[in-house]
């Protein structure tokens, strides 16, 4: 009997490599003859670059080259702009999801002389050491024409432009609102946040003739390969992107940023590999952010709490050099039963670097406003907030007229509320006390759409008894290596220690982005398909003329625990391949979502219950306890799945209590480092009790797995704000909550 490995707590197969420092992250690579790039950032937020004084920098020790607008290949090549030693010209990437060449910022480096945000690169110094490059970068002097900046969404009245494809409307939300007996009309805001992944962005670019190899900390080797091919106008086969290990990304590494393009051009110019590692400060300005957002929420119900109308109109920041739309209201038409719903989204240009996806992009922001509004509505109705949600449970997806593939939200409510002890809650504000502290209890729902993409994979059953699985996706720290190995182990019966997984290389069969909580559901079916094909190939080889099972029907052979058997003779695949004098039996397969999406709506649900403690005598606010129950279909690896939810809950605490990337009135960033950009530290993290329902979603894929990376963060900020209201009577609609908001005047 094959041992079941799927669904079992499985330690990361790459854990030892990481613990011993052997895992090769992007910046760990050192190529022969390598030199170093250090970008020079703009120190103003808005204006025009009039000129650069490079003399002092050029004479600094170790400087080899300085790349800037004057010598960088342009969109339109011209005689007075000779791109000596480099591509004659560059092209913008089409930057689409469909073509899998989306980039973080579509404007090419140095494309125009405009300064669109502080930190925008105006040059890059190439030197023999990192220290020399950095020192010389500080000697570059820029002359600017300074224009007045739009320092951020909260500094402007600009209404921006509508993102039309985000608009949703059903029923008559305005009419239903006007006629409703209980209504709420409030505005919520969330500060800009930054991903602050532990590992810095880094690129090492190396040209061999017209072939480019680039080591990058990326969540998408295939996307970056395609984007670089477009930008340099060369075939994708000529570009290799490698990302064996990634020190997390949270979305900031989904799409390529300008430093990679500058590094590749620099490597071409100097004819040597160039390594660029961004500083923490540059990570803040040049590699995406969760844009600040404002949400106008109008919601109405009848006196029994039945929702009658939801209107959710949102604004997000974008930059002046790309269009980024945060789909803030995307969950709103789906989560609760309500006949009259409208959603809209507008983008407002500000002088910040281009925003990008950040964990649960859009929905986490939207869930803050929606789940806060539900709490406010419950108070207006004098109803328990959990009961209000129960009364608006959506039996089927109200936005798609489709049944849910599986909506276990009620079980999540039951389980989490019981474990939390919600029935002990005294609804009276400030009524629960412990010494100096006032206790607040709040809850909110969590939700994230289940998505799948297409994927290819290759599996080799090898004569040495090992199995190798290869896929051009990557593991950003979530445990994809392990899940791929589990899949192959499950299907072959070969133990995990004899399964070798190759990821993070665009030369491998194309795999998906590590994003959107879709990697597991996308990769597993392809790996399974390739494994089956390899087994099929093995059977064909086994029954060929002169082979050990010659004369048998391939279909009659059984493959179990790594061995083929016809009932009388059993041979391991290693023995068989040895007898056949073959190195391997291989299989390659692709998998993609199919018609199931026309039959069902796929979405995960969960519930967070949070206890905060507010000490009004010293204005101290802490989260004391989080109890969450989440349905993610089947947890392939409950160890890493729980780890994802716990981590997301901690990140949600950051959104609720601490995280804000601040720009001052001049448009200059204020807190671009780990000391001043506050995230939760260990001492802030309370007991987090996560339960994952085991409810496989076999409509979605054969393994029943939906994604798990994002859902844990959704609803958390609202659950905290709702608990804070219960403790203090203060409704905070602007995230993060600051103690000054709660102090008595």
């Amino acid at each position: 009997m094959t041992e079941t490995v799927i669904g079992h707590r499985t330690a990361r197969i790459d854990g030892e490599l990481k613990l011993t420092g052997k895992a090769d992250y992007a910046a760990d690579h050192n190529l022969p003859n390598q030199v170093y790039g250090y970008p020079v950032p703009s120190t103003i937020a808005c204006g025009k670059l009039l000129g650069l004084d490079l003399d002092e920098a050029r004479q600094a020790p170790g400087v080899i080259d300085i790349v800037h607008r004057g010598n960088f290949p342009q969109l339109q090549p011209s005689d007075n702009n000779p791109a000596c030693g480099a591509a004659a010209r560059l092209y913008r990437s089409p930057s689409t999801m469909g073509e899998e060449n989306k980039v973080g910022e579509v404007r090419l480096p140095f494309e125009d002389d405009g300064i669109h945000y502080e930190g925008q690169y105006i040059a890059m110094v190439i030197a023999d050491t990192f220290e020399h490059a950095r020192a010389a970068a500080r000697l570059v002097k820029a002359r600017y024409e300074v224009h007045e900046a739009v320092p951020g969404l909260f500094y402007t009245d600009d209404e921006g432009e509508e993102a039309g494809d985000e608009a949703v409307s059903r029923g008559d939300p305005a009419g239903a609102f006007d006629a409703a007996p209980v209504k709420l009309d409030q505005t919520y805001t969330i500060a800009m946040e930054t991903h602050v992944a532990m590992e810095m962005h880094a690129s090492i670019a190396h040209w061999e003739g017209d072939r480019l190899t680039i080591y990058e900390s990326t969540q998408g080797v295939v996307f970056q390969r395609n984007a670089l091919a477009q930008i340099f106008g060369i075939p994708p086969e000529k570009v290799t992107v490698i990302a064996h290990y990634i020190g997390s990304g949270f979305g900031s590494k989904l799409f390529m940023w300008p430093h990679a393009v500058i590094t590749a051009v620099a490597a071409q110019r100097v004819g040597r590999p160039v390594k660029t590692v961004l500083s923490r400060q540059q990570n803040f300005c040049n590699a995406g952010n969760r844009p600040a957002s404002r949400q106008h929420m109008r919601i109405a119900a009848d006196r029994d709490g039945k929702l009658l109308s939801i209107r959710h109109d949102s604004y997000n920041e974008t930059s002046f050099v790309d269009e980024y739309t945060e789909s803030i209201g995307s969950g709103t038409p789906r989560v609760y039963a309500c006949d009259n719903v409208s959603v809209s989204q507008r983008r407002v240009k500000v002088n910040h670097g281009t925003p990008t996806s950040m964990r649960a992009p859009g929905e986490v922001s939207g869930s803050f406003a929606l789940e806060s509004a539900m709490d406010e509505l419950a108070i207006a109705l004098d109803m328990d907030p959990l009961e209000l949600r129960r009364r608006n449970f959506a039996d089927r997806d109200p936005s798609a007229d489709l049944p849910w593939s599986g909506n276990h939200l009620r079980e999540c409510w039951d389980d989490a509320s019981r474990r939390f002890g919600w029935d002990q809650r005294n609804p009276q504000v400030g009524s629960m006390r412990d010494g100096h502290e006032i206790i607040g209890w709040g809850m909110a729902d969590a939700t994230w759409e289940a998505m799948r993409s297409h994927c290819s994979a290759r599996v080799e059953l090898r004569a040495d008894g090992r199995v190798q699985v290869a896929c051009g996706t990557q593991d950003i720290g979530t445990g994809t290596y392990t899940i791929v190995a589990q899949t192959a182990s499950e299907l072959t019966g070969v133990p995990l220690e004899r399964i070798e997984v190759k990821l993070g290389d665009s030369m491998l069969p194309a795999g998906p982005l590590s994003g959107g909580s879709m990697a597991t559901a996308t990769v597993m079916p392809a790996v399974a398909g390739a494994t089956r094909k390899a087994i099929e190939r093995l059977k064909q080889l086994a029954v060929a003329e002169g082979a050990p099972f010659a004369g048998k029907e391939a279909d009659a052979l059984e493959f179990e625990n790594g061995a083929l058997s016809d009932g009388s003779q059993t041979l391991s695949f290693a023995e068989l391949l040895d007898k056949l004098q073959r190195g391997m039996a291989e299989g390659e397969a692709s998998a993609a979502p199919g018609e199931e999406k026309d039959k069902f709506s796929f979405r995960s649900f969960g519930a967070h219950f949070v206890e905060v403690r507010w000490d009004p005598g010293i204005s101290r606010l802490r989260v004391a306890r989080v109890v969450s129950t989440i349905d993610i279909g089947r947890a392939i690896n409950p160890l890493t799945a729980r780890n994802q939810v716990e981590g997301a809950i901690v990140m949600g605490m950051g959104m609720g209590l601490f995280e804000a990337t601040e720009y001052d009135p001049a448009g200059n960033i204020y807190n671009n480092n780990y000391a001043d950009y506050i995230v939760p530290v260990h001492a802030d993290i309370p007991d987090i009790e996560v339960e994952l329902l085991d409810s496989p979603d076999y409509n979605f894929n054969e393994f029943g797995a939906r994604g798990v990376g994002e859902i844990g963060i959704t609803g958390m900020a609202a659950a905290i704000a709702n608990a804070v209201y219960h403790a203090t009577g203060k409704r905070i609609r602007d995230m993060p909550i600051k103690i000054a908001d709660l102090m008595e005047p």
Partner: protein
Amino acid sequence: MRHFAYQRAGDVAEATALHGSDRSADFIAGGTNLIDMVKLDIMRPERLVDVNRLPLTAIESLDDGRLRIGALVTNTDLAYDERIQADYPVLSEALLSGASTQLRNVATTAGNVMQRTRCPYFRNPSRPCNKREPGSGCGALDGINRNHAVLGVSDKCIAVHPSDMCVAMAALGATVTVEGPSGVREIPFEEYHLLPGDTPEREHALSDGELITHVTLDAPITGAKGHYLKLRDRASFEFALASCAAVVTMDGDTVREARIALGGVATKPWRSFEAEAALSGQPASEATFKQAAEAALAGAVAHRDTAFKIPLAKQAIVRALTTVTAQ
């Protein structure tokens, strides 16, 4: 990092001789602050004199009851010294509330006395800052200033002194011993750090080339209890929004003597003689503590984002006193 020369000294005389009165030279010990600022390009020493080999790592009890701390005693060693924990618990608490274990393991006593502000305008060479570049203006005055000072501010600078250790030392009373080209001298701790006034670039009473060799704590006050309370957004690894070091002796239910110092709200480690006067001889009650808090913050000046610090600092004082008088 720009190139600089590096020299290592074996004793105090060699260190001060190597440094001389050269303004482009700096001493380096733990480096937790200096190296950070060199990497940010806001300090550009041409020469570093490494003092880590100097024999200044002892904590000695003096005959007059004082405790003499060598300049190179690490924050960790100081915090866990038995005499500090027994006689000066407020100092141990303050040290352990600061930074992280890793930083405390290398950060030194003198280095902490010399710690420079965390003001983001100071720490970014492309921003105006009168402290870093006299006459260039102050970015914080009209910028984001939630982490800035409300006490001891001027129209040139509102940067907070970031140290926790120094706040406890201000409350305990101490003397800073320095040695330099003109010999050895002692500076009362209270006079060591300077208010910004019109010269925020002048942060301390050291003359060119002088090196701190010791910090000597006043003899412990008989019967005194101490407590350091640090308030901040998150639970650890963050500079104070407001902190209070309180050292109190009691006569029954009456405060005999109190020492109060504040951190996170002032441009230097802030000894509040006004709060101390309001406490002396008064019953140890909430009303008294509130009066002391009012007195301490009477001269506070708020800017755009700092108004909340005034009530927060008062809360720190009241709670620290409540805790210390209940011990």
